[in-house]
């Protein structure tokens, strides 16, 4: 008589040579009086020796039992699993079933096959169907005749480019990119000051085209954008050009395949392109910030679709942007800056650091307006060939910044209204002052770009910098 507190579950699939091999063993087990519940993943008539095979073509049992390999034998006591073994290993089966012999004539050992429940993409599908994943976003059913791509445009979710339709399955896969709970609130997104959960961020990351492994970067970027110092509401609302630029530092940049090399500020890299876009879509969709609405930009700039790249730390002779902000080299971070477009700075002749600093200074003076001082900040994205001029002369990053600061210091008299026949300028009261072009800390250097080209990029910032507007914000990326 079978012992009531000892029964077994056996999960198989017909399309598995090891499962087929052990078919006679199942008959032996039944003959020996072992109570066996057999589930088959692909054919309810397999194995033929078992009278009532459980049909697990839905894979519900396999998912609930966490089956990774077939065959799997689970020994149960009541409703509790005592132990399990996978594949065919005679000694294990003898031990689990407490028998002296089994499967005579079969080889001693055959590995099993992968369970259908863990095939690529299946885990999330099953978790969604049978699991306890609770997504709280409103479900929008698309009519049969609607083109899903057009629906995304018509509902106003798009920045003007096609979106990846945010299906539940895609969102569940996206959420697998973070350990954070879907209902964790990341903050209130301007301008409507609506709470953005990890789930809402993930939905927008799906639409932007992100892979799940980018999600932690998107979440950190959003958190940085919502820090008061960054002033996302004002940045959105301003008539000025700027929008959030994201610089990624640390090991995650290489891990997710970001571009910090050739064309780092341009198109063609999925992570660069979609992380920046995801942040903008969250502002648009969760925050309600749209051009013509609260976004009052006179012209805007193409970086408002997306503006995200990584610093090339590996080939840099300087401390990284994140290290300057106090993070360790093995921390991954995002730094957000209220950035305008890219202004090229060519200097193909300077081989001495001072000469190159003078070139940078001359170009940096035009940020915002040549007669402005201490308004917009600037990032210089220094190319490898330009950085080499400094590394050959053993100039530190701070030395370069200090020299550029000296060279961009001007007397107020040059800058005030009407001077040089230009009505625009600084107010009269600065006439007797010496004015730096940038506020303290307002000039940042980041190393990126391709190996050829004695060019760097100047990225000017929102004229409302610092306390009156936006300051760069750095935030650590956590999984």
């Amino acid at each position: 008589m079978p012992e009531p507190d000892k029964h077994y579950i056996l999960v198989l699939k017909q399309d598995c040579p090891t499962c087929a091999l052990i078919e006679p063993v199942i008959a032996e087990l039944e003959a020996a009086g072992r109570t066996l519940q057999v589930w088959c993943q692909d054919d309810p008539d397999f194995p033929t020796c078992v009278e009532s095979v459980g049909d697990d073509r839905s894979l519900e049992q396999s998912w609930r039992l966490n089956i990774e390999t077939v065959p799997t034998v689970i020994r149960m006591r009541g409703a509790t699993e005592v132990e399990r073994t996978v594949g065919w290993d005679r000694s294990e089966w003898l031990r689990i079933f407490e028998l002296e012999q089994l499967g005579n004539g079969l080889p001693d050992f055959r590995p099993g096959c992968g369970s259908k429940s863990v095939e690529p993409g299946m885990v999330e599908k099953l978790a969604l169907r049978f699991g306890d994943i609770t997504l709280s976003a409103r479900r929008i059913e698309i009519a049969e005749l609607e083109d899903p791509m057009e629906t995304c445009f018509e509902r106003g979710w798009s920045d003007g480019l096609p979106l990846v339709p945010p299906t539940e399955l895609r969102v569940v896969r996206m959420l697998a990119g973070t350990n954070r709970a879907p209902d964790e609130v990341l903050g209130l997104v301007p301008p409507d000051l609506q709470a953005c959960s990890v789930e809402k961020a993930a939905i927008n990351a799906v639409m932007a085209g992100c892979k799940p492994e980018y999600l932690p970067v998107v979440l950190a970027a959003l958190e940085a954008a919502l820090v008061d110092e960054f002033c996302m509401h004002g940045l959105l609302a301003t008539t000025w050009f700027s929008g959030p630029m994201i610089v990624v530092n640390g090991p995650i940049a290489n891990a997710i395949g970001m571009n910090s090399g050739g064309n780092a500020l341009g198109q063609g890299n999925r992570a660069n392109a979609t992380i920046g876009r995801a942040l903008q879509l969250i502002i648009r969709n969760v925050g309600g910030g749209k051009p013509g609405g609260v976004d009052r930009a006179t012209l805007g700039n193409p970086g408002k679709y997306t503006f995200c790249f990584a610093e090339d730390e590996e080939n840099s002779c300087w401390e990284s942007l994140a290290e300057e902000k106090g993070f360790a080299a093995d921390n991954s971070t995002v730094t957000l800056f209220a950035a305008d477009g890219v202004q090229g700075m060519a200097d193909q002749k300077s081989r001495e650091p001072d000469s190159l600093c003078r070139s940078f200074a001359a170009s940096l003076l035009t940020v915002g307006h040549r007669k402005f001082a201490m308004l917009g900040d600037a990032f210089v994205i220094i190319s490898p060939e330009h950085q080499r001029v400094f590394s050959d002369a053993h100039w530190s990053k701070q030395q370069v910044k200090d020299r550029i600061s000296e060279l961009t210091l001007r007397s107020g008299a040059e800058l005030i209204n009407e001077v040089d026949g230009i009505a625009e300028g600084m107010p009269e009261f600065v006439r007797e002052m010496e004015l730096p072009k940038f506020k303290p800390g307002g000039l940042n250097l980041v190393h990126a770009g391709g190996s050829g080209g004695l060019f760097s990029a100047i990225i000017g910032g929102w004229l409302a910098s610092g306390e009156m507007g936006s300051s760069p914000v750095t935030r650590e990326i956590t999984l």
Partner: protein
Amino acid sequence: MNEVFLDPTAELNPEGRAVLPRLTSLEGKTVGLLDINKPRGDVLLDRLEQLFTERGVSVNRYSKPTMTRVAPLEVKQKIASECDAVIEALAD
């Protein structure tokens, strides 16, 4: 079952797509009158044009080549760019 999307917005608006806001006044507005080319549609539209004009509302007239098909893109774009509202006449 039809495809389901998860709402990426803060869900401040109703799930169904809202119709465009209605005009609250016709003052200074232009109304398009679209004849879909069904018999006697012009009778209704002529009368409407008369009533609008008496009230100082500008009117533009448009027509579809055939009532059996949706309006050509060009006609839709013309109406959308030239008018604040449109009245489409069905008749017989």
